[in-house]
Every structure is written in C-alpha cells, then in structure tokens.
C-alpha cells in the first residue's frame, strides 16, 4: 500500500513540475485551431452592430481556470466589436461573483450598464430559466450590485431571450438552458468545461448548438484567433506536457500488465514440464 502511495506521489510531483515549467519558461507549442472554435469566432465576429449577447456563467470557483479563458476571450471579442453583453448565473451562484474577475480582463474602456451588465444569480433552477426566457424584467428587478435594471441603459430594450442576438452557455449542464430556450431563440453556442465536452457535443453535431467551445482548449484556441494569448495559451503548454506524461504512464502500465501475464504463462509452462 505504501509503495502504491509513493508511486502516486511521484506521479503528482512529475505532473506538477511538467505543468509548472512552461508557466515560467513558455515553450510556445503550437495550438492548432479546431474548426468548431473558428465557427464560434466567426459567429461572434459577424454579429450585426450593437447586438446584445447573453452569456450564462453557470460554473463554480473550482472550474474557473478551465472555463475563464473562454469567457475572457469571447467577452473581449464581443465588446471589441462594439457589441454588448449581459451576464447571468442560474446554477451555482458563484459564476456571478467570478464575473468581476473576468470583467477586470475583458472590459477595459467599456462602461458598465451601457456595454455590459451582470444580472447576478437568479435562484430557482430550471423554473427560473423558463421565467427569464419569457420575461426578464419580471424575473429580475436588480443587477448583481443592486442597481434596478430599469436604470441600466443596456437593459432598456431587453425583455426576453428572443432579444439576444446570441446566447453563449458557459455551463456544466448546457442541456437545461438549451431545452428551455431553443424554441424561443435557436442562436445558442455551448461552452462546457473540458469534462462536459464529450457529453454535450451531440447537441452540436445535431445542429441544436450553433457553435461549440471545449473548455480550456477552446478558450486557448479562441485567444489564438483573437491574437491575444492569455490565460488559456499560457496553460496549454503545461497541459500538453502533462498529457504526454499520462500517455507514457498508460504505455508503461500496459506493458507492465502484459509483461506480468506473459511471465505468469511462462512460469506455468515451466511448472507443467517434468
């Protein structure tokens, strides 16, 4: 048992070193851009002037480093193009808090209330999503900092989800918002965390999601397209090295298992012979 624990510690230390090294001395490994990411970039890039985009930040603090690069890159892009963004959180209550960290990096030179708004956490889960979808102002009366939303110029003509030119779901459970809003507004892009990507990709291939960004990798690729390498690009080198280590460990583990089987078979053969 102690031996197994020591191996675990060694693997963790190796992972930590490989992940940390490029943070200090970047390797600049290429980050090929997936066509799905390019599609999301094009969707945001081609939005008509003064479009309003809804971004749902339904994630918790622990997922910040995985999903924040995509939030920062897309929000930067939306605002740079002169469009507007509305942020809301339905699932965790922490996404609305973390939005302030994202705004620090993505909203320079932009005015709160005019260019972007944080509507905060809306309690009630799926029923709140339905209510928000049909009448935003009846569902929320104040923004995250307590300002009545009637006093926010950006919210003047926003009443239902139909009023958004694009909806971007940064969420662990994209399917919940998707199933409630798709009939009102089919222009939905999904941005799940890395872990959720295999689960939600069928919604993209079926055409229900108009675009799909895969967690940290999607964020890093978007930064490349935006020509603004940030948190995502910095982390990708370490992620690539860590994955190489894991691949190596899988090979070593399998060779060891196969070796054990062969060794057992050979020793049985020897015992069988007189």
């Amino acid at each position: 048992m102690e031996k197994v624990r020591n191996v675990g510690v060694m693997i963790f230390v190796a992972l930590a070193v490989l992940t940390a090294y490029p943070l200090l001395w970047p390797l600049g490994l290429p980050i090929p851009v997936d066509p799905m990411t390019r599609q999301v970039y094009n969707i945001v890039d081609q939005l008509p002037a003064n479009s309003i985009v809804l971004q749902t930040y339904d994630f918790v603090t622990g997922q910040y480093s995985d999903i924040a690069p995509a939030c920062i890159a897309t929000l930067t892009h939306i605002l740079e193009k002169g469009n507007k963004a509305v942020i809301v959180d339905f699932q965790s209550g922490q996404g609305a808090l973390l939005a302030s960290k994202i705004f620090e990096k993505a909203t320079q030179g932009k005015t709160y209330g005019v260019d972007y708004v944080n509507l905060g956490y809306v309690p009630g889960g799926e029923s709140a999503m339905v209510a928000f979808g049909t009448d935003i102002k009846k569902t929320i009366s104040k923004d995250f900092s307590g300002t009545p939303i009637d006093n926010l110029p950006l919210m003047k003509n926003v009443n239902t989800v139909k009023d958004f030119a694009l909806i971007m779901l940064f969420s662990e459970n994209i399917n919940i918002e998707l199933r409630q809003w798709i009939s009102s507004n089919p222009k939905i892009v999904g941005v799940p965390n890395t872990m959720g990507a295999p689960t939600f990709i069928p919604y993209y291939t079926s055409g229900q999601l108009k675009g799909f960004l895969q967690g940290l990798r999607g964020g890093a690729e978007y930064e490349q397209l935006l020509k603004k390498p940030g948190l995502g690009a910095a982390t990708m080198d370490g992620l690539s090295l860590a994955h190489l280590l894991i691949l190596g460990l899988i090979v070593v583990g399998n060779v060891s298992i196969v070796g054990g089987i062969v060794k057992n078979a050979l020793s049985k053969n020897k015992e069988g012979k007189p």
Partner: protein
Amino acid sequence: MISTDVGTWIAALITLFAISYVFKESHLYRFVEHTMIGTAAANLVVLAVGSVQTIVVNPLTKANYLAVIPLVFGLLIFARATKRYSWLSRWPFAIIVGVGTGLAIRGMIYAQVVSQVAATASLPLISADPVLSLQNILAFVFVLTSVYYFLMMTPRAHTGRLGIISRIGRWSIMVFLGAKFAASVAFRIALLAGRLQFLLWQWLGLGG
C-alpha cells in the same frame, strides 16, 4: 516579486494545505477541508436568504401579496422537523417535483429525444468524403447498438447470435466512457495548472 496582499497569501496557503493531501492527510489539510465546507454552506445560506428576498420580500414591498404563497409553501418544508406535522412537507415537495418534471419534460422531448433521433436518422452514410462517411456509419451503428444494449424485453436479446449487437453496444458505451474519463483527467490537470499559475504568477511574482 512576491505578493504583499494578505488575500493572496491566504489563498496561496490554503492551496498549499490542500495540495499537502497528496503527501499525507494532515491537520492542515483537514483545516482547509472544513473551511471549504463551512464557506460553501455559508454561501448557500446567503443565496437562500437572497432568494427569499427576491421571491418574497421584494414583491411584498410592492404590494404583490401573491408572494405569500411561496413563503407559506417554503415554511411548510420545515414541518418535516416534527413527527406530527411532517406530512405537510409533502405539499411543497410535490410542487417542486411536479413543476420540475413538467418543465424538464416539456423541453426534453424535443431537445434531447426528437432532435437527437432526427439528427442520427439524417446522417448521410454515403458522401464524397470517405472519412465523413466512415464517421457517420460508425455513429449510426454505435447509436443503434447502444440503444439495443438497454433493451430488457427478453434475455434472449443479449445471447446467441443477437448477442453480438449487444456486445458492440457495450463497446461503444465504453468508448464514450473512455472519452469522458480522458476529458475528466484533462479537466483536473487544467485545475492544477490554474492553481500553479496562481501560486507562481500572483503569489511568488514569477513569470506571467
């Protein structure tokens, strides 16, 4: 340069204490664990109070007395604490489950069943691009066999010659679970990278 911000130092020490679990479960780790649970519980209480404020108090101040209804049903949940009146708590739970299920099914049928079936049925199995054709054929076979794997009408469906369909279904489910596990590992490494980035860049002031 190393950070002089107290908040950054607290976050850095908490991160290190949490990571110390890899080496040994210590008092430092337990302190962080308990702090995290306490903070999460406190956050939930704040959110709950905020919800009551939004759903009940704010409407009542605007003379919307219908807001008393969710307040009463909310209070009935606490009836569970008494043996005599615990049956009253079934009403709010019945509403929560009923409304939740109704809302979910309404969208689920279309978004998660009809659209997915339609998308699979309309996959072009033969196209100019051989890779796309192969991809679509595999998706088609994997969907059908995975669904077949869950047919429980008769044990015969999973034995004999028909058993091969079930086995392909099982393998395709395992391929999905493998992809899910790989994504889970990648996600964890991304979280580790995030913490290391914080420690090296923000706390120690190296790189970045």
